[in-house]
């Protein structure tokens, strides 16, 4: 927080205000971390004292040692890499496909009106219901999982982008037409650059949704990846694996979000 506020040459009242602001944020951060530490601590203590069954609930230290040994054998890196790779590929595909489809729908109003009810239905359908179908159609493995990842995010993303395109001020169309432009110029000079904030904020949501889809896919159709590790671990009662994978998924979800957010900040910065 400190680097954001500037004390130089400010009045006493202003300094008091800033100090109060900083104190508030310090307290919030402190409590945030405290909750996490206390949670892990009680988890460890209660399992050590056999108050809860560490076979079912695992414990931070068991998770850590499982984690270390799996890193040493190279298994964990592989599982994480697979899940990450699948998520990133489906995310890239979602981004490219949804922008292209939304642009096409905007360009061809007739197609958009026809497609609307289908998109709405597909978007509200729980995508996990489709996963078994994907297995039958595409087999088990990489392709199915990427498709599962795409299916969760794609329809919402198309709808959101299309709506953003449609809400463009019609006076901007007038501007382009009177400057001698055609519909495709509106697309290039107004829609694409003007929708950058919507595209980027959509990407932040989509990366998380793709991870959800990929894990669902791995539950059903994988031999590798964190989703597979969770399902397999629960079947053979290796709950250390299950809880470790869940914790790693939390970290991945947070990390991916942060990466997209950074990319957004970097991209929105003016030269």
């Amino acid at each position: 927080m400190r680097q954001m506020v500037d004390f130089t040459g400010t009045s006493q009242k202003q300094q008091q205000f800033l100090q109060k602001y900083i104190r508030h944020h310090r307290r919030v951060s402190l409590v945030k971390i405290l909750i996490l530490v206390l949670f892990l601590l009680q988890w460890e203590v209660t399992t050590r004292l056999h108050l809860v069954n560490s076979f079912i609930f695992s414990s931070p230290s068991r998770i850590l040692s499982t984690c270390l040994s799996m890193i040493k054998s190279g298994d964990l890196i592989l599982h994480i890499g697979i899940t990450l790779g699948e998520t990133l590929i489906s995310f890239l595909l979602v981004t490219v496909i949804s922008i292209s489809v939304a642009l096409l729908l905007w360009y061809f109003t007739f197609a958009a009106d026809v497609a609307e009810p289908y998109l709405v239905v597909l978007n509200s359908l729980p995508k996990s219901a489709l996963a078994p179908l994907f297995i039958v159609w595409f087999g088990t493995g990489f392709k199915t999982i990427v498709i599962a990842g795409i299916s969760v995010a794609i329809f919402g993303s198309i709808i959101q982008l299309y709506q953003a395109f449609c809400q463009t001020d019609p006076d901007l169309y007038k501007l382009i037409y009177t400057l001698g432009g055609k519909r495709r110029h509106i697309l290039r000079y107004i829609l694409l650059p003007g929708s950058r904030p919507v595209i980027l904020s959509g990407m932040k949501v989509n990366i998380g949704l793709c991870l959800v889809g990929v894990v669902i896919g791995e539950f059903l159709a994988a031999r590798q990846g964190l989703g597979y590790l969770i399902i397999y671990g629960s079947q053979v009662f290796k709950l250390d694996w299950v809880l470790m994978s869940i914790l790693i998924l939390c970290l991945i979800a947070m990390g991916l979000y942060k990466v997209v957010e950074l990319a957004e900040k970097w991209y929105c910065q003016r030269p």
Partner: protein
Amino acid sequence: MQPLLSFSDVCYSYHTLKGEIPAIRNITFSLQEQEFLALVGPSGCGKSTLLNLIAGLLEPDSGQILYQGKPLSLCSFSTGYMLQKDHLLGWRTVLDNILLGPEIRGVSIAAARKEALKMLEKYQLADYANAFPDQLSGGMRQRVALIRTMINAPGLLLLDEPFSALDYQTRLDVGNDICQIIRQEKKTAILVTHDLSEAISLADHILVLSKAPSHIAFDCPLKFGISDLTPLDKRSQPEFQTYFNILWRHLHETDG
């Protein structure tokens, strides 16, 4: 002399699901080269519709619009349109906003850039060439919007209440500036405004439109005793008040 633009018996209606909305009925007028015409009339009477017809964004249901004696659809002249909002694109610099027209038309950017810098210099905006629009005041933005229009060398300028979003002081200044620019560049312009005194101080000729479906209720050429007055000077002339009273009366007759 052949007029630059002429309307004869032009009618236009909008078609909506709620029914047909006649906007313009039998409008006839003509506009000479380098003339500055102002359109005034009650809100919703069809002023913007008229400009859209001239810009070729709409086509008349009946009647004829001629540009230099030829039907509008056969002419390849460009109109410069300025609206109430300046519509500068926030993600482009001032210079790049100005170059939007040349980019779209695919003409040489290098030449256009040189021209743009010259115009920015001329209108005291040179320091802002590489600034983004949100760093400019409302009046500066509207001047940039004018340069963006002028750089395409439009045959006719269409100004749809371009000053009405500005505060009063800026509005007088920018109105003054823009009027000077238009006269210096020897442009023909049509200004739509709600402000009678603005119309009188800027234009050579005023048309009062009636309520929708609009027709021309009163045609008033303006003549000041002293020629070449600036818009601000015109406001203090005795003719100003006379014209104001006459136009005010006609405007209210059409309203009532």
